[in-house]
């Protein structure tokens, strides 16, 4: 299947697109701060370190199988039948991820901005735009990555400066006033979903760039995204302190407190705008990779015909994924970590171990023969 883009993007675009992908999850941090509280920044650093290890494993596997996508990689390691089953597991994970992201954005808009609007009236136009963008070519979306990333970085700097009067250094304490179980639960949740699914961007790279050595670009982009997330978590902790575990949207509330000389107030709309554009970017990348994987599993000539169907299915799925916002929050805090770990840690680890065993067996066979 020819997935090469008509126009290749630059390494700078790729770097900031990887950052924008991670930044898209940095604005809805209640699932981290609810469990980790004032230790959220420690959990963020720990999750970053764990995610680096996972990324290194995946990049190693892709380097050892040049020119192969995820499906071909799984076929090579597990064999055709088992490989397709593993690939289908990844497809299911990414399919659900699209719906979860739609649900998150829909939940925010329904709760705070468009409370009387039926959810379907928000979801349908959103997915329609994503489907058109992905069908047109994912490279056009990647070209917007630096713009969206820069938008959030600039607003982050501005909001941090404006929130200085509301910050209390004592709010960072106490640190690590948690049981080990609480700490690892919170860290695992952060690692599994926002950080751990960065491998999806790697799957989209062959379509948008001819860069062979994208390893350092991905690591740099991920680091930028992780640093932004860390800064957001630290700012929210300094401003809200013990209220972190009570608030459904800590970042949103922090920004609502901004009042500079009675001139700069009510900045929450800027938050909403940045959240929408970043999530749109992430949804486009997820939808593209989801369609690509399914097309490769069934050996179709092109992924394009699947985009509309998957867009519709994920939109409908997002509407009945959770019965309520509180069910979604509870799932995110308690279950998401374990769910995500299976797909973005255990499966890649299994692939890595099986590949190593295969290498070892080949070497043994070569020695004996």
């Amino acid at each position, binding site marked *: 299947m020819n997935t090469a883009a008509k126009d290749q993007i630059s390494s700078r675009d790729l770097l900031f697109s990887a950052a924008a992908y991670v930044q898209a999850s940095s604005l809805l941090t209640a699932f981290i701060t609810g469990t980790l509280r004032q230790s959220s920044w420690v959990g963020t650093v720990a999750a970053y370190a764990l995610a680096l290890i996972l990324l290194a494993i995946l990049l190693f596997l892709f380097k050892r199988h040049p020119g192969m996508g995820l499906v071909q990689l799984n076929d090579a390691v597990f064999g055709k039948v088992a490989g397709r089953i593993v690939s289908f597991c990844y497809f299911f994970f990414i399919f659900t991820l699209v719906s979860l992201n739609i649900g998150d954005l829909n939940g925010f808009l329904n*709760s*705070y*901005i*468009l*409370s*009387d*609007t*039926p959810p379907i*009236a*928000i979801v*349908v*136009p959103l997915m*329609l*735009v994503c489907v*058109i963008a992905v069908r047109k070519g994912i490279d056009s979306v990647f070209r917007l990555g630096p713009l969206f990333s820069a938008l959030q970085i600039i607003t982050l700097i501005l909001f941090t400066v404006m929130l200085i009067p509301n910050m209390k250094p*004592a709010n960072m*304490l*106490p640190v690590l*006033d948690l049981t080990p179980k609480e700490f690892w639960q919170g860290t695992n949740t952060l690692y599994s979903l926002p950080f751990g699914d960065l491998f999806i961007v790697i799957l989209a790279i062959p379509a948008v760039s001819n860069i062979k050595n994208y390893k350092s670009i991905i690591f740099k982009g991920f680091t930028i995204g992780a640093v932004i997330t860390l800064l957001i978590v630290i700012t929210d902790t300094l401003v809200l*302190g*013990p*209220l972190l575990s*009570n608030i459904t949207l800590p970042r949103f*509330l922090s920004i*609502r*407190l901004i*009042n500079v000389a009675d001139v700069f107030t*009510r900045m929450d709309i800027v938050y909403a705008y940045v959240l929408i554009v970043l999530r749109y970017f992430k949804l486009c990348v997820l939808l593209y990779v989801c369609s690509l994987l399914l097309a490769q599993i069934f050996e179709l000539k092109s992924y394009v015909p699947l985009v509309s169907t998957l867009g519709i299915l994920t939109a409908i799925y997002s509407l009945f994924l959770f019965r309520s916002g509180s069910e979604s929050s509870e799932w995110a805090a308690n279950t998401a970590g374990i769910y995500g770990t299976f797909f973005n840690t255990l499966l890649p680890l299994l692939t890595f171990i099986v590949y190593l065993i295969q290498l070892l067996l080949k070497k043994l066979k070569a020695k004996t023969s």
Partner: protein
Amino acid sequence: MNTHAVRHFGIRIAAILLSLLLLCGCWNRRELDTMSIVLGCGIDKGEKPGEINLICQIEKPSPAGGEGGAGAPAAKFLNVVNKGTDVFTILRDCNSQLGRKLYFPHNQVLIFGEDFAKEGIRKQLDFFLRDPETRMTVMVFVAMGKASEAMNQPTVMEGAPVIDIVNMLQSQENTSEAPQIEVLDLLTALISPTTSAVAPLVSIEKDGDKTKSVVAGTGIFKGDKLVSALNGVETRGFLWVKGKVKSGIINFPFMDGDVSLEIIKAKSKVKPILLPDGTPMVKVEVTETSNLGAQNSMIDMSSVEMMNMLENRSAEVIKSEILYTLQKTKVLGTDIYGFGDLFHQHYHKEWKAMEDKWKDLYRDLKVEVTVKTQLNATGKVTRPAYPPVQKQG
């Protein structure tokens, strides 16, 4: 243009039109003339048990063409009062009374009546915390008497009494006799297991044959129930420790008259210490800078020696204010300073054993207060308006 391209073009146009139709917020449109902009809310105890009276002060739009003509100017606000057992239900009843939906994003004030505050504010506060329209920057007050009376006083400068009350609180920065407490601060105190919430007091005073609102003093809560109050000077004793004294006047007798020092700036440092035997102790260090504002004695106070004496005396006055308020809160068993939370932040492992006993620990808490003052200037003149004292030969 081939069919494929035409179809794609059509789909894109359809997507744009659909987005324009559905995402402009038409479903959620709220025209200005269908909204009642709430400027302030008040809650009083109702006549029946469990009942409350909710007062919403709403801005009344000015009539077109201005307010010219003879006669008293029309009020720029309207107080809507309703009773019930739950804030949210009462607000919906207000909507049907007014024919417009109440609009909360511009709400600036939340006033609890004295009787209502004494019974507990937590249950009825929940709406103001939870609703997406309300903001956490709303100023909280406790009215000595009824909130409805405080919200119905003749206005001094502004169109609505609640705006007057907010302005009075903000001008308290000049005297530091009332704390500025937002809903966020109140929530932080209420969720703390040891810190007692506080709120500025608004009372009604007679001014000849009229009445007016006055903002001064602090209401102290135990849990969510109002238990006591601090007057203006005692409030300043509290604010010294919190580092929230911005300005004010320190008055004291000195030599053969009285001296008034104008506070220019002040800050505080509070450090919790756990002594080797496990006893908690708090060190409070207050640093203050002031100018000589006025004196009514004939002594020249501009000499270095006199300035040093004034500094020492003002430090004693500040320390006595702090200790007096501290002692009052210790007797009440209300940790309004948040010392318990400080110990939790700095000694979280030891805190587990202290948390349940904090009420008793606070009563016996050793607090070491150090005050450093600096007198900067004496103003435009050095000597008071007296002839210089002749030196004995």
